[in-house]
């Protein structure tokens, strides 16, 4: 019996030793850069989070493989740094800041990721990027729009999208243009926004821009995301009857807001939305005619194909990674940009050294055919100073470009037509 046991132990040790030897050369040969993604894959913003995740996957596909027909930096070569490929580790923050922070820690500590891309919700991006900054590791933020994120003086944080501050200024510019050129008489503004980091910052920037430009805020309505109804909110808007509403409502809250306005038979003259449900093509489709004539800042939509010709080929890959298959939207495309810019910086720096990659990110202006601005460059704090968005209006279910005028393709319908549309 003892002899049998000895043989088993001997064989076991031998097997482990052999497997260990086999494993060493393979891991040494494999040159992998692990990148973590941190998006809301469950919870109220999950749909948007899953699209952001698919967008990063698309960019990684373009970087890791050779796509001669795609006119995007790194597409024509295989991998990075002469043989490295990128491997993505996905994490779900559920839209919760505490979960986002702990998942960022897990990604860095256990998964040993090189950098994190995320996190869609500004409220989550804030603590998650704090983890990265403390570890002196890079955090690439695609679409979180809170202006405060790039005002913290962080060194390792980079954001691609325009901020709520930029969008608020665009909104008031549009209002001024509508007043000056079209005599629409827009004076008063109402704000409705989810009571979160994103919503509150958007509202703060909105209020500041409105006051600085001589307009008047007459109603300010934060609401709890995921509410069972928005009757009080819309009733309050209706009672104050502002000319213009700035909205920051995500996902299902946006549909509920629109449906409740219809139910209460009220519309402002103009409804301008931050990066919200307005930009979501699926929600727009589901709302049907009710979605029409709302306006908002948009960084990308398929209607922009003429302005951004390189997107189409990348979008084909992206559409295969989404279920249901959808084109890029304004938020998701920024995450692909984040991945591509980080990869370009690593390639240009010629090393994975964090300090050198960080300095390279700041020191250069990057080609970015997937960005409306065409290029990406960062100011101290990490904001992309080349970030651009257009003001669009939904007309017959399409995002029509209305402002700035040099990029416009359609005249705006102002005031919004009543709900009893033919």
């Amino acid at each position, binding site marked *: 019996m003892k002899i049998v046991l000895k043989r088993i132990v001997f064989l076991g040790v031998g097997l482990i030793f052999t497997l260990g030897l086999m494993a060493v050369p393979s891991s040494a040969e494999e040159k992998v850069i692990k990148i973590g993604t941190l998006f809301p894959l469950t919870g109220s913003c999950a*749909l948007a989070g899953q699209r952001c995740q698919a967008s990063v996957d698309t960019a990684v596909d373009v970087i890791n493989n050779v796509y001669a027909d795609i006119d995007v930096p790194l597409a024509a070569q295989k991998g990075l740094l002469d043989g490295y490929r990128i491997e993505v580790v996905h994490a779900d923050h559920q839209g919760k800041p505490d979960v986002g922070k702990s998942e960022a820690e897990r990604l860095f500590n256990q998964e040993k990721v090189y950098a994190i891309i995320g996190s869609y919700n500004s409220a989550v991006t804030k603590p998650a990027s704090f983890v990265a900054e403390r570890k002196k590791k890079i955090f690439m933020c695609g679409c979180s729009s809170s202006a405060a994120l790039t005002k913290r003086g962080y060194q390792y944080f980079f954001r691609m999208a325009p901020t709520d501050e930029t969008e608020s200024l665009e909104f008031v510019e549009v209002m001024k243009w509508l007043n000056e050129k079209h005599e629409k008489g827009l004076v008063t503004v109402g704000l409705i926004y989810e009571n979160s980091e994103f919503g509150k910052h958007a509202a703060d920037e909105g209020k500041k821009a409105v006051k600085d430009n001589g307009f008047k805020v007459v109603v300010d309505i934060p609401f709890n995301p995921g509410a069972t109804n928005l009757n*009080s*909110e819309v009733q309050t808007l209706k009672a104050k009857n502002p000319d213009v509403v700035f909205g920051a409502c995500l996902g*299902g809250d946006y*549909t509920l807001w629109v*449906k409740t306005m219809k139910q209460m038979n009220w519309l402002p003259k103009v409804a301008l939305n931050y990066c919200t449900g307005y930009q979501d093509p699926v929600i727009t489709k*589901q709302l049907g005619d009710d979605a029409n004539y709302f306006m908002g800042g948009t960084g990308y939509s398929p209607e922009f194909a003429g302005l951004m010709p390189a997107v189409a080929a990348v979008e084909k890959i992206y559409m295969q990674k989404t279920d249901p298959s959808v084109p890029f939207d304004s938020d998701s495309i920024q995450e692909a940009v984040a991945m591509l810019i980080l990869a370009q910086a690593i390639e240009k720096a010629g090393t994975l050294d964090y300090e050198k990659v960080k300095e390279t990110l700041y020191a250069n202006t990057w080609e970015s055919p997937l960005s409306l601005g065409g290029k990406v460059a960062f100011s101290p704090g990490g904001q992309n100073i080349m970030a651009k968005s257009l003001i669009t209006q939904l007309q017959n279910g399409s995002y029509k470009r209305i402002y700035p005028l040099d990029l416009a393709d359609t005249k705006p319908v102002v005031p919004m037509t009543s709900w009893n549309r033919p």
Partner: protein
Amino acid sequence: MTIFLQVILDGLMNGMLYALVAVGLSLIWGVMDVINFGHGEFLMIAMYVSYWLGFIFHIDPLFSWLASGAFVFFLAALTYQLIIKHTVGKPPLSSLLATFGLAMVLKNICLNRFSPNFRLLSDTVLGGKVLHMGDVIVSMPQLITALFSLAVMAMVYVIIHRTRLGWTIQATAMDKEAAELMGINTEKIYLLVFGMGGACVGIAGGLMPSYLAVHPEVGTLFGLIAFVIVAMGGFGSIPGALLAALLIGLVEALSGFYIAPVFKYVAVFGLYLVVVMIRPKGFFGW
């Protein structure tokens, strides 16, 4: 004055909806002493049933509530047979934890099968329809839901208080052993009550896709509000549930409009705290 009437009407109609969601929970809690943490998820499942019937077969929620009510009746009966039966008579925590687990399972099945996407039924019979009473606007989907709520609550009340079956349910709720000595099959009563509770929330969920988006998280807040209503109204009391639901709907609407919209759930849960501190058994609890 018009605005005040509008706010009151909105509050009452929301309250009716909450009542319809809560009545099933109240029934189960009152008769079986079981806290069904899966109640909000039953609502969500019913909404999905109604949504898919509308999406695939173009059956309007105005009719598909029958199917969703029946579906959740069987789902609840199955839940009783597979899970709840084994927790009856055990410490209350066991049924609470079991139904909490059930809620997680149901939510994650829906997440897995249907994704977290928000789904809206467009072109429903009631969708976007309103009734004008002077300057006051009545939303038809909410009005119909409110009428269903009253009808379902009246039906449940009549069953419990005016029928032989109801008396056996009451007897089982009051003293299970004595009921068994009188020849009542309490197992079957429990099964039926759990099914009835499911059917009530199933009917509510079946009607809701007329005006609300469907997604795996949709039942969570409704479930929480249902608990508050049942605790405020008194365990097992149908009139209590109706009163508490109307009160909550009104408090939500009035505080949301006259104080601040962001304050409305603070007011609702604040009211709940006050009621249970003054009267721990709720308005009509025994």
